[in-house]
């Protein structure tokens, strides 16, 4: 589906582009019409859906300046070809309207705080060559269009899952088999049983689970408990690392049915990214 023309020079230009400096002027709002209305609407939605007012750099966004002057946006031949906003404090969900940027070559939203799923509408981006969404809090199933992924794809360091084998195979191949091993997903096969000692059943319950594949960076498993008759879970404790596969919950009221849940956590960390060349 993809036009795999090697736009390497364009990518590099996008990555290191410098926003032009414009003199103050009283340009009318409708002067920002250097792109089609649908593309303008997509960028507007991106801004509002990800807290644009609080971005680290939102220079010229939604102003009357040409869209090509907005921080991180590249326009060529009257169409948006680059959305380059890494490490810019984008907080919220990726709007499906980004699928309305038909000429988009490069989507770089890595190292932000994006949540929710990757919208399947991004599969409409037939020209997309590069999609970097790593280092966010994206969750849910990978959309099926990623069975034929962009040439440069980075989805590491989220909590995404891929149950479709063709999608999983494709993204693992792109990531040199480092997709699953970088996703902070819930542990599986959680089980609970009261500990027994000398034939006596204790007021402590042993939890065990299958640890996730991603054990490399610091983190652990957070354990939550509640009496079955209660509504809200309470935090109990966390393991010291992600290789752990068990914990013993102590100090419980005796003879009571308890429910438990476990989540995985990876602490903020630095990592290396490869720049295609």
């Amino acid at each position, binding site marked *: 589906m993809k036009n795999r023309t090697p736009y390497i020079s364009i990518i590099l230009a996008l990555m290191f582009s410098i926003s032009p400096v414009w003199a103050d002027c009283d340009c009318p709002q409708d002067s920002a019409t250097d792109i089609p209305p649908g593309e303008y609407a997509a960028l507007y939605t991106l801004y509002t859906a990800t807290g644009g007012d609080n971005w680290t750099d939102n220079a010229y966004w939604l102003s009357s300046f040409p869209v090509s002057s907005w921080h991180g946006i590249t326009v060529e031949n009257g169409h948006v070809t680059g959305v380059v906003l890494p490490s810019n404090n984008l907080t919220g969900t990726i709007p499906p309207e980004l699928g309305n940027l038909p000429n988009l070559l490069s989507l770089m939203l*890595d*190292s*932000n*705080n994006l949540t929710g799923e990757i919208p399947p509408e991004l599969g409409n981006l037939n020209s997309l060559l590069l999609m970097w969404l790593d*280092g966010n809090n994206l*969750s849910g199933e990978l959309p099926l269009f990623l069975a034929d992924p962009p040439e440069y794809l980075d989805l590491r360091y*989220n*909590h995404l899952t891929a149950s479709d084998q063709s999608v999983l195979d494709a993204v693992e191949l792109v990531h040199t088999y480092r997709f699953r091993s970088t996703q*902070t*997903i*819930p542990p*599986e096969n*959680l089980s*609970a049983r*009261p500990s*027994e000692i*000398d034939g*006596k*059943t*204790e*007021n*402590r*319950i042993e939890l065990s*689970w299958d640890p996730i594949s991603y054990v490399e*960076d*610091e983190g*652990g498993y957070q354990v*939550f*408990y509640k009496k*079955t008759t209660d509504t809200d879970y*309470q935090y*109990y*404790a966390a*393991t*010291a690392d992600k290789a752990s596969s068990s*914990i*013993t919950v*102590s*100090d*419980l*009221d*005796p*003879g*009571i049915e*308890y429910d*438990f*849940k*476990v*989540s*995985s*956590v*990876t*602490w*903020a*960390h630095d*990592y*290396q*990214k490869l*720049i295609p*060349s």
Partner: protein
Amino acid sequence: MPYYEGRSALDTFSDTSETASAESGNYCRTFIPTWKQAPEYWTGVVASNFGDSAFSLHLAARDPGGEYENLGQNPASLSIGPGLQNSLLGCEFFDGDPWNDDLSWIELGAEGSSRMGSIFLYGTSDTSMMDGAESQSAFARKLYFTRPLDEGFFEGWNPDIQMSVVNPNAEEVTVRCILRGSNGETESIHTIPARGFISGDSNELIGPGHGIINGFIEIEVTEGPGVIGFARIEFPQVGTALGMNAVQASLSRRFYSAQLAHGMNIATNLRLVNTSAMSRKVTLSAIGDNGDDLAYPTTVEIPGLSIYSADLGTVFSLESDGGVTTGSLLVETDGHGIIGDIIFANGDTLEYAMSLPLQDRLFTEAVFNHIANLPTVFTGFAFFNPGDEPAEITLEAIGTDGNIVAEKILTLGPGERIARTLTDPDMWPVFPPQSGGYIKIQSTRPVAGQQLFGDKSLRYMAAIPPTTRLEPMFD
């Protein structure tokens, strides 16, 4: 191919797993990690029943191999009625000979009730030194000894630092003991039998001649459910002692101490350990008893797997003006993995040294497990309200017969702290003499705090955190 640095800027949390359920059993165990007895030593064990029904208490003292110590009655059992407390020397519980040399640990188990609080105190027969700690109910797969070496605040006092790692489980465990310091790290592997323990100084636990400085010890369980730990630190030339439970890694980013004092030779030494591999910025705030800042907060950066140790009077440039400046300490970090403790002592002589872990969980219900109000011994307490709203703290002192002997409601405004002995004029100046009983605490807002025992001539003092529970404590 060139690289650039990516950043997962925020902690990443997954959704939760599916639910698993189980019914808890009726046998409630807690552990006293060290029982030292010798002609010149004693260890006292306190068990209180703050529930509404009696329970049978079972005690067992175990040797390093996990076998019962050879004592008159081991294991031993007794009944503790509702509201009552039992405090005896370890040898009295087990009908043992107080003149025998024994080093063991004690398991306490209660049938059908988890409303049990327990602490232990150890000292010398001439009561020249004493300290203690709370019993431990939870074991962990990773534990830390924060002060395993003769350095820093201990330098020049020739401490004897004996650390115990106890396996309270019915299966053997394997542990890695890693001594991490500013000049490197070294480790050793130990297998601890079921219900056994290992004990020794850093040379015995890690290996002789390790040469590590500015260090802390990490205990990692590589096989088995978990362990508990305790450090017994004695200063023979001074005649003082510290007892410090090994602590688990913490995910908290705020820590509290209701004890900070400076002036008239009193020193408060803080030691923080960054158990994370990432560097952490830590902000220290000294808050006066009235809730006002004693000084500007100070921020320090602690590299990964490193320690920070400082005298808080120096850190905050506290002036004593011939008196004592008192207050609370608030420690805030920009990431997980910080643990720590304070030692409070005469900075010139190390007399009355006492230690306290930094508290990372506040409480609204708690029990101070023992009252000692005798001609030579006092009991005190301190509370710190770090919240934004006033806390109303109700104290009920329970006598040895289980009845309330005194009540008091204290109100602490935001940031305020109070420290009192039981017989202070604005507390209970005619408090009955007793050695036994306990204090129930209920607060309308979360607070930090601990109790104190001391000799009135200030030869020794012991600071012990209260018993708290996951579940409501009082019916």
